[in-house]
């Protein structure tokens, strides 16, 4: 692949030894139905260091959710390999927490019971998890709502419950599939801020799928840009803002400029086709190496 040749970026807060915590190599996904087959994902390769927050950014239908589900062991790869923590993905692991676009809370369970669902569904005793569940609920600002049912909560609160549930098993990796895309813009900003805050405490490795450029730049250490044709990663951009980060970085000119660059890449399938030397700087990965 000769797109913006992408060297491994080193995470701001991870040691070099953990660089290949997640290794995706020539991953492909083909959906075959009858004699027709659709390539949902072609030849995707990237590495993620332990502790890095990666946003996977692209238009809808570009295969980014498929890629995420493959990393979570929920979809099998048609070709290529995905290794996590040194072993190939064959199926779901408890060391990986997943958040979906829909909070998928069980309507008959309370907030606390929903947070403890991962333990419950594996037949583990509730008592061992109650304290941790309560801590998580307090951390996301839902103190006092432990015994409410999902229908009594707002959309943002439900996603907060889903975050707690994904963190219950203290996973090494959190996979998030457009978790805030169904929320209104104001709530979305709030959730982004909440997630930045949670990140400060937990510092897990994260893959975050989104079609919002702003969200990607706001949250991530690196942004992987995907396009529809080909359905692959066309750019790997380091976000130059350090941590702790808060939502005010979105008001800086640098933030706006980075968003504009990313928009160009998405619109032009990687943004390199029409470029010539001397066209001005295109963001190079690693160029802004975060200083955390």
């Amino acid at each position, binding site marked *: 692949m000769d797109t913006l040749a992408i060297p491994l970026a080193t995470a701001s807060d991870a040691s070099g030894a953990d660089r290949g915590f997640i290794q995706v190599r020539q991953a492909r996904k083909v959906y075959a139905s009858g004699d027709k087959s659709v390539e949902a994902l072609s030849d995707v390769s990237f590495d993620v260091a332990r502790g890095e927050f990666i946003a996977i950014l692209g238009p809808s239908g570009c295969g980014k959710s498929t890629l995420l589900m493959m990393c979570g062991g929920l979809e099998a790869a048609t070709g290529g390999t995905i290794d996590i923590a040194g072993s190939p993905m064959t199926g779901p692991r408890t060391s990986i927490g997943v958040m979906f676009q829909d909070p998928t809370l*069980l309507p008959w369970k309370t907030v606390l019971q929903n947070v403890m669902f991962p333990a*419950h569904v594996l*037949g583990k005793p509730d008592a061992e998890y109650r304290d941790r569940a309560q801590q998580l609920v307090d951390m996301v600002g839902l103190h006092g709502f432990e015994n409410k049912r999902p229908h009594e909560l707002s959309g943002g609160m439900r996603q907060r419950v889903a975050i707690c549930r994904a963190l219950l098993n203290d996973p090494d990796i959190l996979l998030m599939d457009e978790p805030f895309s169904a929320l209104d813009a104001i709530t979305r900003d709030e959730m982004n801020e909440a997630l930045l805050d949670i990140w400060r405490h937990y510092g897990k490795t994260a893959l975050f799928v989104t079609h919002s450029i702003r969200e990607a730049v706001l949250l991530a250490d690196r942004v992987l840009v995907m396009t529809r044709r080909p359905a692959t990663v066309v750019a790997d951009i380091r976000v130059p803002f350090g941590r702790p980060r808060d939502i005010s970085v979105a008001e800086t000119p640098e933030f706006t400029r980075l968003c504009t660059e990313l928009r160009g890449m998405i619109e032009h399938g990687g943004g390199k086709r029409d470029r010539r030397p001397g066209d001005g700087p295109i963001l190079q990965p690693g160029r802004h190496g975060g200083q955390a």
Partner: protein
Amino acid sequence: MNERTLSLVLPLASAVAIVVAWQLAVQLGGIRELILPAPSAIAGKLFGTLPSLLQQAAVTGREALAAFVLAVAAGFAGAAAISSSKILREIVYPAIVTLQLIPKVALAPLFVIFLGIDHEARITFAALLSFFPVLISTSVGLANTDLSTLRLCRSLGASPWRTFWSVRVPFALPHFFSGVRISSTMAVTGVVIAEFISAKEGLGFAILAAGARSQTAGAFAAIAVLCILGLALYGAVAGLERLAIRWYRG
């Protein structure tokens, strides 16, 4: 009057109105008692023969309850089986639908041949009659489990067994109970039909015997007890449904 009392008063009022109209029609219209006895005559017969009617009701009630329990257990187990295996579903479902199309009343005499003229035959027949609604509605409920919740379970590494009891069953409970409610009335119907064919006791037998002796009021009295029996079973199921949903869903 609030909605709650209204929904209690209106059905009662309509029942009373029907009984009064019936009584008046028989008395003023000069309908012969052989054709249609007045409610007062039926009530007289009912209380006059109450001990024997209750005895018959106990027989029918026990059989209906046994048939109902069997039907619910078999219907639930069958639905669980066909919802867990696509192959099993492909094999079994067409057969079940075909069987459903046969007027099952036509099979009642065969059960006498298969199982004799005792309780077993009647219970089995009534169970067969009432098991379909549970099977069909439960499998619809199990098939309609929220897909993203199932994906969540998969991502959590939950076993199919755990997923079934923690997620699929609670999601299917309302469907399951709508089948169970239909099944409770059909169990009573099934036992009465079977009693028409082979019994020496029970309310079905009492209706048949009264009819044969042209005791129309006696037949109506037995039918009235049958109605109460059916309502009691239905009411018990409705109460159980509330309890189960509250208990299971926490």
